[in-house]
């Protein structure tokens, strides 16, 4: 619900909100400028101290005004009756400059910000824009809390694509100021249209000055001498020659009427409540008189274009994955197999549609629906299959939120069997937690499992196909599930380098270097995009998706080369019976493959210059090789790597030694399992606990890349080290300082 509202509002009002934010950010500079320009008022000065000299110098004085930023100006007419105004030096009460009207740029920008240079219609549009901004802030906050799994965790390191992380980071900084800006704007809008009435304090009787007395200087009047100058907002002088007229003096607290001859206070009216509230909202929104608030709001507003652009990118990514239409869907009551989907982003729907298609092709009557639509009225069902992701801290995704309570209404254990397939990412602490909970809940309700719960890491199509084989066996039909995760357009790459390691250990590993077969065009736009970093196809820690000869399911390999538009290097361990790895190992120089680059946003160097401990085994060295080669800033990178034998499969030995010489690699620690006194990389971590503890206490990050078993062993070692520092791997993960890429 929140997500749909948030996207709809954001897209609908994108341009309006952007225009308001950008113009507001620029406007916020003015109160700061005015505050710096205003001369300070000495304590102990009274209104009479400047009213006296000014009235003596200017016979046709009308009023003295003090702006919220503290600048004092005087309005008067010259000898020819020409209305003028000037800026007053508070210490001397002299005019130091003529007071200019606001420049065309400021006036135009303010007009644009309030109503897009149109009259009331423009103001309504701006008011709606403010309302949308407030709604976006609130729905965004609700989404953030739901996504991260609770209020306490909203400051955890964000995950997801670059756009998602950018959106999350900028939002956390800007959310509260933006909420303040937009709520105050909505209030000002309501006042403007008189939906909220603001009444200024006014004199009820409007008393008159005592008649028949000689004129006196304003500087001697007790009523003006009693008010400190720093409290003054506005002082209206009696109209010249009108002996009935009075001084009208406004402060934040009250309106005072003073006799122009006796100086007696004739009436005091306290400021109205609505007037005070208005003054606060006005100051909070404009920053006039509260320049530091204005600066904060202005800075937050400058982030809005970034937030908006990232938000649109997220919406677009979702849209490309989404689309829930299913061809040949059988009604739930008539289906032999019911597939129910719990999905937040939409990628799980893609898998579900593939399952639906292949089961239908196998001759089954299949229904596909959302988990929230679970009804229990599946008269013909033999199997109910749940495909679900997990949201936030182990919660149900959006369209499965009601599923557990709906299932609880099902009293009798059903006659059908069930299977649960969970989708998730091992980098998250509660990997596939909702799928596990669901399986447990169904088991305790007496449902019969056709298959044990199966968890799929990072949309692995191989794991999905393998689960399909198991499902086929359970259903008594040959099911070869193929799901193609939507792949971006591929490029043709030519093999230009090939080194084979580890053959002596019966574990051949190939380091393969490719170059784009057709050199990219080098037009002006392309050059510009490359300069902005938008056109770099291959970057270290990103993945290279390779389509095997059958062209179906791409396999992903970490990129081991530096950022490049044309060249890319990967490490491939030959898997027994592995289709793609065998294909790549058999390639000869000059052969071509189809591939594409894919970002791996949850496994990149943290945005900081602190040291990083990198732990890997085997081909897990690939992303680190890329990072070390790119480490021109000489960030302290410490590599732990495990292989089998120094003489046979020491990947990147030359590269690493050269990097140590040049300072791009701070330290290298290796472990070889098949050598004398053999050891694994986790043994080296344990042995180096003191050094690692020192690095970690200085705020070092940890990156781990390799097989699941190795990653688990390493995690256990780090937990021991971190426990001595009073923290844990989980705590570091929450802060985005313990990153894993596990395969």
């Amino acid at each position, binding site marked *: 619900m929140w997500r749909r509202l948030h996207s709809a509002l954001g897209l609908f009002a994108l341009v309006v909100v952007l225009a308001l934010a950008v113009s507001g950010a620029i406007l916020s500079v003015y109160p700061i400028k005015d505050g710096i320009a205003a001369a300070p008022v000495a304590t102990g000065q009274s209104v009479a101290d400047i009213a006296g000299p000014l009235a003596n110098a200017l016979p046709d004085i*009308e*009023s003295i005004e003090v702006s919220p930023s503290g600048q004092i100006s005087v*309005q008067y*007419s010259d000898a020819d*009756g*020409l*209305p*003028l*105004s000037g800026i007053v030096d508070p210490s001397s009460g002299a005019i130091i400059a003529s007071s200019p*009207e*606001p420049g*065309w740029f400021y*006036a135009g920008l303010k*007009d644009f910000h309030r109503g897009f240079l149109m*009259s009331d219609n423009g103001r309504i549009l701006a008011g709606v824009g403010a309302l949308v901004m407030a709604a976006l802030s609130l729905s965004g906050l609700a989404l953030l809390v739901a996504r991260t799994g609770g209020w306490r965790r909203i400051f955890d390191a964000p995950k997801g694509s670059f756009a998602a992380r950018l959106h999350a980071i900028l939002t956390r900084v800007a959310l509260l100021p933006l909420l303040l800006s937009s709520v105050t704007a909505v209030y000002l809008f309501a006042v*403007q249209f*008189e939906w909220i009435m*603001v*009444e*200024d304090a*006014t*004199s009820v009787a*409007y008393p*008159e000055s005592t008649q028949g007395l000689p004129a006196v200087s304003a500087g001697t009047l007790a009523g003006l001498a009693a008010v400190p100058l720093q409290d003054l907002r506005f002082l*209206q002088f009696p*109209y010249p*020659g*009108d002996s*009935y*007229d009075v001084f*009208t003096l406004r402060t934040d607290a009250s309106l005072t009427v003073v006799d122009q001859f006796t100086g007696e206070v004739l009436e005091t009216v306290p400021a109205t409540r609505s007037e005070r509230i208005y003054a606060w909202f006005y100051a909070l929104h404009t920053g006039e008189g509260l320049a530091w608030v204005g600066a904060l709001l202005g800075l937050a507003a400058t982030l809005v274009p970034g937030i908006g652009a990232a938000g649109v990118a997220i919406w677009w990514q979702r849209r490309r994955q989404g689309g829930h239409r299913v061809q040949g869907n059988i009604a739930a009551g008539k289906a032999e197999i019911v597939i129910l989907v719990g999905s937040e982003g939409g990628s799980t729907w893609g898998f579900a549609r593939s399952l639906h298609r292949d089961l239908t092709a196998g001759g089954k009557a299949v229904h596909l629906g959302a988990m929230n639509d679970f009804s229990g009225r599946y008269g013909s069902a033999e199997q109910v299959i749940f495909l679900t992701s997990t949201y936030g801290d182990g919660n149900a995704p959006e369209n499965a939120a009601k599923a557990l309570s709906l299932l609880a209404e099902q009293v009798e254990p059903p006659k059908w069997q069930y299977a649960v397939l969970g989708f998730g990412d091992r980098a998250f602490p509660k990997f596939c937690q909702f799928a596990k909970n669901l399986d447990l809940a169904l088991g305790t309700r007496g449902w019969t499992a056709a298959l044990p719960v199966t968890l799929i890491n990072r949309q692995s199509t191989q794991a999905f196909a393998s689960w399909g084989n198991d499902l086929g066996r359970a259903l008594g039909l040959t099911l070869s599930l193929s799901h193609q995760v939507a792949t971006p357009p591929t490029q043709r790459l030519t093999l230009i380098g090939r080194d084979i390691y580890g053959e002596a250990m019966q574990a051949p590993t190939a380091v393969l270097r490719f170059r784009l077969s057709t050199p990219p065009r080098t037009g002006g736009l392309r050059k510009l995009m490359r300069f902005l970093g938008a056109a770099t196809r291959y970057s270290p820690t990103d993945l290279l998706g390779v389509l095997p000869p059958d062209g179906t399911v791409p396999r992903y390999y970490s990129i081991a080369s530096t950022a490049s538009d044309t060249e890319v290097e990967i490490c491939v361990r030959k898997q027994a019976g592995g289709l793609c790895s065998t294909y790549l190992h058999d390639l000869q120089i000059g052969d071509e493959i189809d591939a594409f680059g894919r970002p791996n946003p949850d496994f990149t160097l943290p945005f900081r210059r602190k040291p990083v401990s990198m732990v890997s085994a085997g081909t897990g060295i690939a992303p680190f090789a890329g990072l070390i080669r790119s480490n021109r800033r000489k960030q302290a990178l410490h590599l732990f790597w495990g292989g089998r034998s120094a003489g046979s499969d020491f990947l990147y030995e030359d590269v690493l030694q050269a990097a140590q010489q040049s300072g791009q690699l701070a330290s290298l620690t290796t472990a070889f399992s098949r050598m004398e006194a053999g050891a694994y990389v986790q043994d080296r971590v344990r042995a180096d606990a003191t050094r690692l503890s020192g690095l970690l206490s200085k705020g070092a990050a940890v990156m781990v890349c390799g097989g699941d078993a190795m990653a688990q062993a390493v995690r256990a070692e780090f937990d021991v080290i971190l426990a001595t520092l009073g923290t844990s791997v989980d705590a570091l993960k929450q802060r985005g300082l313990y990153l894993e890429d596990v395969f």
Partner: protein
Amino acid sequence: MFTLLKTATVVAVLGLAAPAQARPFNISITMDSYRGQEAYLAAYIVDANGQYVSTVLTAGTRSRYLADLSRWNRMFQRAGGRVDGFSGASIGSGQSIRTQIDVPDALLNAGYTLRIETAVEDKRYQPDEAAILLGDANNGQPIAGSGYVRTVTVSY
């Protein structure tokens, strides 16, 4: 750019004893081309001693800002008037406003003056925008304003 003719509300009936003879007055005000928001304007009659007689016309859509016409507002309030809930036609740069009121003959050629004040947000308030002596000499003559008003014409 274009001219809007608007009929304004007469905001107060002349506070005089039942006039023996009165005639309709046409008051027409045309604004200059100025850069800024819509204007706030008050037109009122004062006697030969500058004492307030009656308000003839106010313009400007938000009543709260009428009080910024401070010279008029003080006289208006002293005479028991309040701006709360007042609103007039909107009048901006280059636009025109026109109204008709009944004026007793006794006010003609007797030193009574139609005075106009204007104010525009963020710009200088004009307490002496225009003053037209009510009498045959000015009948039908366009009188120039000194601030945001181009001309004021009174005809009867």
